[in-house]
């Protein structure tokens, strides 16, 4: 940043709206894939834990360890194997969602009141019907709460993947840093935060739509 240069050059912003839209698309794509794939894997592992409580220790240990690895180090370690690709980014991003998702799915389903489960079984629901018609709908609020945390943290982490050639809005931050160009840097940061806030709000709306009964009582 050269002395006398304003912190934000609005004319630069106005002339780069196309790029913002492009980066938004990238950012959303990286996030949606990570959250979607993470959810599916976590869902399968959660069912395993609920059926075989012995699996909980090892799974929690692995996903917990994964969660503690600094993101930059994880991406760097993966590059020799998967290169500067979207796969490298997604392996890391998916890995970070697992602990959050598993924790919430398992907690949500275990939180279903015992009497509700007993009534369902007693009236002749099969185990599969108990899961899909009773346990998952009742766990929805907790699971969506986990999805909010996973989504917001993924949106933040996506910016780091700019260092391995991905990044969405993170790309703006990275370039802004390299060029000492505060306008681009701030634009990247503000847009990332805005995306996280909007995504979070949408998930809150989704939860209200899916669990109208939870708003009562």
């Amino acid at each position, binding site marked *: 940043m050269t002395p006398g240069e304003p912190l934000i050059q609005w004319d630069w912003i106005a002339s780069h709206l196309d790029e913002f839209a492009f980066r938004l698309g990238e950012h959303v794509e990286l996030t949606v894939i990570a959250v979607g794939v993470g959810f599916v894997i976590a869902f399968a592992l959660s069912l395993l834990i609920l059926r075989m409580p012995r699996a909980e220790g090892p799974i929690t240990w692995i996903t917990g360890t994964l969660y503690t690895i600094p993101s930059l180090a994880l991406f760097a370690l993966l590059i020799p194997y998967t290169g500067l690709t979207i796969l490298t980014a997604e392996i890391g991003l998916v890995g970070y969602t697992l602990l959050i998702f598993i924790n919430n799915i398992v907690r949500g389903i275990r939180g279903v009141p015992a009497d*509700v489960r*007993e*009534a*369902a079984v*007693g009236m*002749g*629901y*099969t185990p599969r019907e108990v899961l899909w018609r009773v346990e998952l709908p009742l766990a929805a609020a907790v699971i969506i709460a986990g999805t909010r945390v996973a989504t917001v943290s993924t949106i933040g982490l996506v910016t780091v993947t700019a260092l391995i050639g991905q990044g969405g809005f993170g790309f703006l931050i990275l370039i802004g840093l390299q060029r000492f160009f505060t306008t681009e840097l701030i634009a990247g940061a503000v847009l990332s935060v805005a995306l996280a806030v909007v995504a979070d709000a949408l998930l809150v709306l989704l939860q209200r739509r899916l669990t109208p*009964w939870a708003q*009562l009582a």
Partner: protein
Amino acid sequence: MASTRGATVEFRDVSKRYPGQLAVDRLSFKVPAGKICVLVGPSGSGKTTSLKMVNRLIEPSSGSIFIDGQDVLHKEQTALRRGIGYVIQQVGLFPHQTIAENVATVPRLLGWANARIDARTEELLALVGLEPSRFAARYPAQLSGGERQRVGVARALAAEPPVMLMDEPFGAVDPIVRDRLQNEFLRIQRDQGTTVLFVTHDIDEAIKLGDRVAVMRGGKLVQYAPPGELLAHPVNDFVAQFVGSDRGLKRLALLTVGGVDLDTSVARASLSSNAPVLAPTTTLRDALIRMLASEAQVGVVLDGQRYVGVLTLSKIGKMIRSDT
């Protein structure tokens, strides 16, 4: 009109063993179709375990249970359960479904047509005293405890099951609501003709609701009899103690003035005007209380306007001493 016909339920030599514990010990008894059988006993007596073996939430270790002569162990579990109503103390309504959806649970599992489900749901809500237009679209969280338990009963009856299992269904509501729910339950059961197995630890509830009462202790059936007989002839000290030292009074609550051999030799005109007027349907317990409270010590029995006779304390005493 009875829209369903109850089935007979028979326990034949049923035992349930857990490691280091015999929860139910060679239980054998038969419940006639359309009757209410109350399993009563202290906690740990095996009554709930016995109930849950009927719909196979618990599998017996040995012995058989027959519904209308068919061994429940030979039926597929979910099909068996869909054919048996089930009501539990905490009700277990689905919080994420409306009252109508809750009631429709089993009919939906059975694949009934929507129109039939809607008609049945409305009929049942009305039957349990919940105005369908007010309650159908509500969620369980918006109902009181008593209302929720009514929905629980409606849900259990939805697919017209020949047998209904009830595990302390009125245990969690306050005494006034419980009394009302018990009376409504009796009316509904007579109306539907369902055979009911009912678990409680409350002997008064057992006597009030049961056509037959099965007293259990330590996994064993101690006595199986109609409530009047249980009160008149407890088989041992345990049952005598369990039914209470006031069992004579409790029995009077089961007997009515109409069942007494009244003294008809006394002219009505000779009776004190303070004597309470009793109907043949008045219970002897109520009659006794009113007679003791009056100066006359006797009761005038009127059937409508017609004078039937005089009830005296000695006649009541004779009923307490009588065998049947």
